[in-house]
């Protein structure tokens, strides 16, 4: 009887210790993923504000913003998208399990973002009118990836 109680206690102890450890395991990758998306949003915001006339066009600022997007596209993504860090398995993420069902598609979408960012970096210093097409190019890649791999907005 005593052994049984010990075994049960050990099992429950293990189970309760395992659950939070699992979420904690992904804490750093979630922060990194959401951080890189935030850096993208801030720099897209600068380009967008200038495109919409809410911020005066400045070629140097536009170039710095586009260069930052290129820099994000060059961050090694492999360690950031570890299996089991989807929205069905853990809290705090909108990453759909589909990412790991179609990892090739996911990588292709990220590469498409990199190409669009590079194209933007090559043109945004040419003048305010270059911003619209640059943003459309990048925005299309955001949408393509989010449509397939991110939970709907709520």
């Amino acid at each position, binding site marked *: 009887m005593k052994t049984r109680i010990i075994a049960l206690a050990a099992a429950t102890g293990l189970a309760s210790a395992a659950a939070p450890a699992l979420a904690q395991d992904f804490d750093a990758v979630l922060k990194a993923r959401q951080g890189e998306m935030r850096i993208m949003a801030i720099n897209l915001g600068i380009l967008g504000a200038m495109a919409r006339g809410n911020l005066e066009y400045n070629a140097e600022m536009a170039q710095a913003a586009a260069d930052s997007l290129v820099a994000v596209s060059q961050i090694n993504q492999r360690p950031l998208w570890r299996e089991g860090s989807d929205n069905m398995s853990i809290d705090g993420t909108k990453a759909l399990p589909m990412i790991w069902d179609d990892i090739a598609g996911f990588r292709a979408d990220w590469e498409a973002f990199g190409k669009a960012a590079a194209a933007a970096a090559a043109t945004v210093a040419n003048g305010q009118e270059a911003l619209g097409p640059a943003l459309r190019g990048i925005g299309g890649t955001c949408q*393509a990836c989010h449509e397939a791999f991110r939970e*709907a907005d709520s």
Partner: protein
Amino acid sequence: MRKLLTFVIALGVIAGAAGLWLTRPDRLPGTALAGVSAEAGRGEQLFWAGGCVSCHAAPGAEGEDKLILAGGMRLESPFGTFVSPNISSDPTHGIGAWSVDDLANAMLRGVSPEGAHYYPSFPYTSYARMSVQDIADLKAYLDTLPASDTPSAPHEMGFPFTIRRGIGLWKLLNLDPDWVMADPGDAVLERGRFLVEGPGHCSECHTPRDGFGGLDTANWMAGGPNPSGPGRIPSLLPDALTWSATDIAYYLESGFTPDFDSAGGHMASVVSNMEKLPAADREAIAAYIKALPVN
């Protein structure tokens, strides 16, 4: 006693007949198309406003391939899984052989050319607010799109939802082509109301549903559980959506929120349709959303 029995049977027959009559597929009058001539250019605009591609393109299709309306998208619901059909111009597997009258009955009444009810996963409850002229224009455009010989897959429904006659009853309760927003008395808002409540079928996700899958119009655009999958669909009412009209129009054009997050899930697909509309149409939609009442 015998008289009573006869009476009860007669009553039963009458009730049954009335039920059958009430739930019968209700087609448009034969004269509905008199004097209508179609214009494909206008139809193309309605095509993007209506978001046909979002459900009827083959899953995963990109670029020009999205115009091949082969169907096959799976839409999960509490009633079963709907599979979008082939509506390409193929005369056998698509709707290439349909008349304008056939498409009008499908979109405005939810009735197939064979006279059966469609499931309301096909949002005819919204499309019913379009005119016969709109349908004629749309058909003219659909006829210009490529054909696909992919056969349509059947829906995967459980009993009793396999009995399509029951949809007749559902339609009595839920198919009402009247506008939800009272006459706005303004041309821009009126255009926005047409796009949002009609072809855009925004309410099909942004308005919560009752236990029978009917839209709860008392909570128009108040958001609710995702009708197909996990998560919630956000409210568009002023207490929840605080973006300006220009922010909303820019979101529909670019997919970027005011803080430059980018639309996700099915809304990304909606944006990829809305970006093809004239700017004035996106502004009209934004104006309508800003005119929604506080709940």
